[in-house]
């Protein structure tokens, strides 16, 4: 009996959480922003969310590309197929590793920061104080952060894949001696714009939406205490990572199955 009660309460908590998250998103976005005031806010957030994530994205992308080239080369060279190193690296990065790893890094770097920042603003009554100043915190605080996340991650994903390919070029061509012309031309032949690049962009937009939504909601909804903020920050990283990985499987199945 106790377990049933517990399960019931858990279910209600989850459903009402989803409801609150939906209301948050709708009230934050369902209005036309004043471009003169909204644009500087968006620029600020693009800097905080996007530009400040550049270092980790570029460094990680480079290393992942280098490792892919190293591993790929040792396998491919056994079949005399090292000419396929270019497309192998490019397809792995563009289809899967780029969107997924960039999203996971983004959740850890930008998502957690968003949650902590908004949670702290709540705990120090800054959000309440905005409301009392007749400034809607959903529009002033949440909306620009949400848009900034939605714009940043697809761009970061593209950069991740691009520097990954450059890293692979460095290892495969400059160190291991694959022919540079072959590396590029076979890659160009094998990567399909619509199937690979557009799908990669779609994935990154979906991930950006989910991560940023979770991050701003967790911050806005947290218990306004130090413990509540730390819990919310952890929840942002854990939940967005799980969503990214499971959505990636679903999207891949939809995009590449036929």
């Amino acid at each position: 009996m106790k377990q049933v009660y517990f399960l019931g309460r858990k279910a209600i908590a989850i459903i009402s959480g989803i409801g609150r998250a939906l209301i948050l998103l709708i009230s934050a976005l369902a209005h036309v922003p004043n471009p003169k005031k909204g644009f500087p806010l968006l620029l600020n957030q693009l800097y905080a969310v996007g530009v400040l994530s550049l270092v980790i994205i570029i460094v990680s992308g480079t290393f992942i590309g280098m490792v892919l080239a190293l591993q790929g080369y040792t396998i491919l060279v056994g079949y005399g197929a090292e000419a396929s190193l270019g497309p192998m690296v490019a397809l792995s990065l563009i289809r899967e590793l780029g969107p997924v790893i960039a999203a996971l890094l983004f959740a850890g770097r930008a998502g957690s920061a968003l949650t902590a920042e908004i949670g702290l603003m709540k705990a120090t009554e800054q959000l309440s104080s905005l409301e009392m100043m007749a400034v809607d915190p959903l529009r002033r605080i949440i909306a620009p952060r949400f848009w900034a996340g939605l714009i940043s991650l697809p761009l970061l994903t593209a950069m991740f894949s691009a520097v990954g390919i450059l890293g692979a070029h460095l290892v495969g061509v400059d160190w291991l001696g694959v022919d540079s012309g072959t590396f590029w031309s076979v890659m160009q032949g094998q990567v399909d714009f619509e199937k690979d690049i557009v799908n990669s962009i779609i994935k990154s937009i979906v991930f950006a939406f989910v991560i940023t939504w979770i991050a701003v909601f967790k911050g806005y909804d947290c218990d306004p205490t130090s413990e509540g903020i730390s819990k919310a920050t952890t929840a942002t990283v854990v939940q967005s990572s799980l969503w990214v990985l499971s959505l990636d499987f679903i999207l891949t199945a939809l995009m590449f199955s036929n």
Partner: protein
Amino acid sequence: MHLLLKRGLQNYNMSEILVDIRNMTFKREERVIYNDISLSIPKGKVTAIMGPSGIGKTTLLRLIGGQLKPESGNIFFDGKDIPRLSRNALYETRKRMSMLFQSGALFSEMSVYDNIAFPIREHTNLPENLIEKMVLMKLEAVGLRGARGLRPSELSGGMARRAALARSIALDPELILYDEPFAGQDPISMGVIVRLIRSLNDALGLTSVVVSHDVPEVMGIADYIYIIAEQKIIGQGTPEQIAEQTSPLVRQFVNGESDGPVPFHYKAAPYREELIRKTVFTNNRRG
């Protein structure tokens, strides 16, 4: 003397009411915070709301500001029923009031100057040189003109509260709600804040609501006092009337007696019994 007092009170009742709370009940989940409470805030005066911690004073200010909705009853601000306003009407009404939060709630990423300019920039299209004049005027009023370039984290507690006060009067509101303005202040900044509240009220023709549990400061500053306990108003009147009241509840609060009608101890089993039973209790916990 008695007659004089009575006439004074009549005049008092005749003066205009800015905030009128009628038969308001508010609950947090199952817990009743206010049970059918009614009170009026007269225009142009300093009204104090006193009561022990955790009784719901901050909650009352949030109810007036429309951040919380009562279970039942009305909260009129200048004739408008706050809980029943549409979102846009509520935001329009909030431009006429202002709240000084307990923590100050300054925006941590902005300088003091930008904090005070914030509401002006949000709600008006004034040119920057005019905004500067307004901000400096408000800063001068709270004695912080020299601190305009500092960040909130560089301010002392008393300075932060004064900066927040400057921000809350930036757009000349009609009503200003102070949440525990004296809490955690050293005696000097306490004195400064007491004088500021009074002088702003009189100079700008504001209506002030001061929520506090600091009895002497409130008695010195308020025109009218409500004392809240046990979900209701247990006493009200001018400071002189409060000082003369004989109700044991009011006496306990005003004199700061630890025990009285409001018990010092949270409801518990008798102490002796508990001491004997303690081992059993801990064992129960573990088992």
